[in-house]
């Protein structure tokens, strides 16, 4: 928006003290100058104390830059320009401020997770391990089993609901109710989903029930609405002409959906499904109440406690065995593994959406 860069005629007459038609402009070099000054000021704030204090440097620099811009622009330009520059500085600093926790979280997870990022962690369980050693193999297997089960439940469930809402229901009252309920489902807190699955299985199996299946049911409750939302959105993007062309050729409705509508929307749907999986794979609370934790490998989701990565991480941190450092290191490596899985899934979603896009749109 280059229009803003042009110095504006000063409309407030009393501000034009120098008598010229336009006031001076700070665009370009002067702003860089102010920023450089702010950086120096920031450095001065820690230099006398010795040792680099990054946090103080950044904070003082930003504050000095914001205040400096406001004052200098007010003097050289006009109050309106000053407010505008002030707003720009605030927005930019807000963005930088938000990057701070992101960088810090990623850095911390990588740094601390690296301590146990070794072969043993990915091949050994915690069976009989007291103190150092051991690993999260059982938790990784558990996470994969529970997440796969969840995907098996949630994908058809969500996809068919979306197909119903877009292809069959044309604004019927039933479909409006379902849409409203999907909204409600989206808002269910994850721990409540866990309690529901627990309550369900308690009625079947008796108090104290713990199993991978119960965890998968809880996660299904969380994943399905996400799948519905994204699939619905993607199906609605498919142009009606494609459907009509197919009907005109005498193709039955279901074949139109399977052969025409779904392939057109598949890129977006798959991306949505992968992102939904990434979302539930890190869920901890529902698994804590439905599956619990165990030190041993349990491949049977139908009975007994299982370890999962998020719960393993939480438990190792919250209830460390002696020496605590070993437990805490395992917690961080489990967290790192989890973050890596989520990142890989997100990257997969991007690649999928690119590869599967109809050729013309690439």
């Amino acid at each position: 928006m280059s229009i803003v860069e042009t110095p504006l005629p000063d409309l407030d007459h009393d501000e034009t003290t120098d008598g010229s038609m336009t006031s001076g402009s700070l665009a370009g070099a002067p702003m860089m100058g102010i920023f450089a000054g702010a950086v120096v000021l920031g450095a001065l704030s820690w230099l006398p104390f010795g040792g680099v204090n990054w946090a103080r440097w950044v904070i003082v620099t930003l504050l000095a830059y914001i205040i400096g811009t406001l004052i200098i622009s007010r003097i050289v330009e006009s109050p309106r320009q000053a407010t505008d520059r002030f707003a720009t500085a605030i927005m930019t600093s807000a963005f930088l401020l938000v990057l701070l926790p992101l960088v810090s979280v990623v850095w911390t997870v990588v740094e601390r997770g690296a301590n146990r990022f070794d072969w043993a962690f990915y091949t050994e369980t915690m069976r009989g391990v007291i103190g150092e050693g051991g690993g999260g193999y059982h938790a990784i297997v558990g996470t994969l089993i529970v997440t796969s089960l969840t995907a098996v439940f949630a994908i058809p469930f969500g996809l068919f609901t979306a197909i119903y809402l877009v292809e069959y229901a044309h604004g019927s009252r039933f479909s409006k109710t379902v849409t409203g309920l999907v909204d409600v489902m989206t808002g269910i807190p994850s721990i409540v989903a866990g309690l529901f699955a627990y309550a369900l299985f308690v009625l079947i199996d008796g108090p104290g029930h713990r199993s991978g299946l119960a965890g998968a049911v809880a996660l299904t409750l969380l994943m399905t609405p996400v799948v519905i939302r994204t699939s619905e959105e993607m199906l609605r993007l498919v142009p009606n002409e494609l459907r009509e062309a197919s009907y005109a050729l005498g193709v039955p409705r279901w074949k139109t959906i399977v052969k025409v509508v779904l392939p057109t929307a598949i890129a977006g749907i798959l991306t949505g499904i992968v992102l939904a999986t990434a979302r539930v794979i890190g869920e901890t609370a529902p698994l804590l109440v439905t599956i619990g934790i165990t030190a041993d490998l349990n491949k049977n989701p139908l009975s007994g406690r299982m370890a999962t990565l998020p719960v393993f991480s939480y438990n190792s941190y919250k209830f460390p065995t002696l020496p605590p450092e070993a437990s805490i290191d395992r917690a961080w490596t489990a967290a790192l593994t989890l973050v890596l899985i989520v990142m890989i899934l997100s990257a997969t979603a991007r690649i999928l959406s690119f590869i599967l896009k109809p050729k013309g749109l690439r």
Partner: protein
Amino acid sequence: MTILDNPPPADTDESSIDEPVGKAGDKVFFGLSFGAAALIMVTLAAVAIFLVLEGLPAFTGDTSELDGDGSFLSYVGPLVFGTIYISAIALLLATPVAIAVALYVSHYAPRKLATTLGSFIDLLAAIPSVVYGLWGITVLAPVMARSVFPWLRDNLGFIPLFGSDVPIAQSGRSTLTVGVVLAVMILPIITAISREVFVQTPRLHEEASLALGATRWEMIRQAVIPYGRSGVISGAMLGLGRALGETMAVAIILSPAKGYFWDVLTAQNSNSIAANIALQFPESSGLEVNRLIATGLVLFVITFGVNVIARRIASAGFSGADG
């Protein structure tokens, strides 16, 4: 449901040879999709029913086996307070920053960079909550306890939120730290929704404002913010809904106590419902479990209310400059 408008005559079902190709397939496919949609209703009904069934004994059962006076209200009261208090702090911290970030991405950042910058913010949403919990207690809590808490206590101690007789938490595991972590967690939601509506501001509104000599900030105040207001509010409400239900970060970071505590800097904090369930559930049995499930039901009702308000605001839509 137009497909049902012309039901085929019942007798043709048997003589499938005369039927057009795929009639049976159509029925099966419709049945599957309709069944899935109906299953949504069944599932939600089941959630409500099972939670009530398993929560009810907390009221009707022999409450003498529970700790305290056994009254459910005196148990859940501080938890409801804690849940709302922590979430409100998170919301207060996150919303202004989220709006600024959304404006930065939609109206300040270079066009080409905008999507990339936006996806950075989305990355924040992808990080599992247990990781935020570990980060909060390991990295953020010590920083807060060392530099932020003493400053707030010394300079703003006259405000009851920061000043009380109880010493500040040396571990940093207090309501304010949790509020900051939750703010980081809900920020991407509020940002994403605000960004979406800011981008949709009619180009003509913006250009009209600029043409009248407005600076970029004035244009944003005149055109973008009025247009996006309802979107921002509904985004904030959705973020609030997420904060209310957030479990692990609170369970890991907060140092809880029983009762109502306003001071956000001490080691005595009202716990949230979700975190309380996560902490108590593994060691509970009998009626205690029922009571926890009943608190879960309370949480469900609270988040449900917040989400309904959010949707209502969102569907009210743009009622700004053209009104």
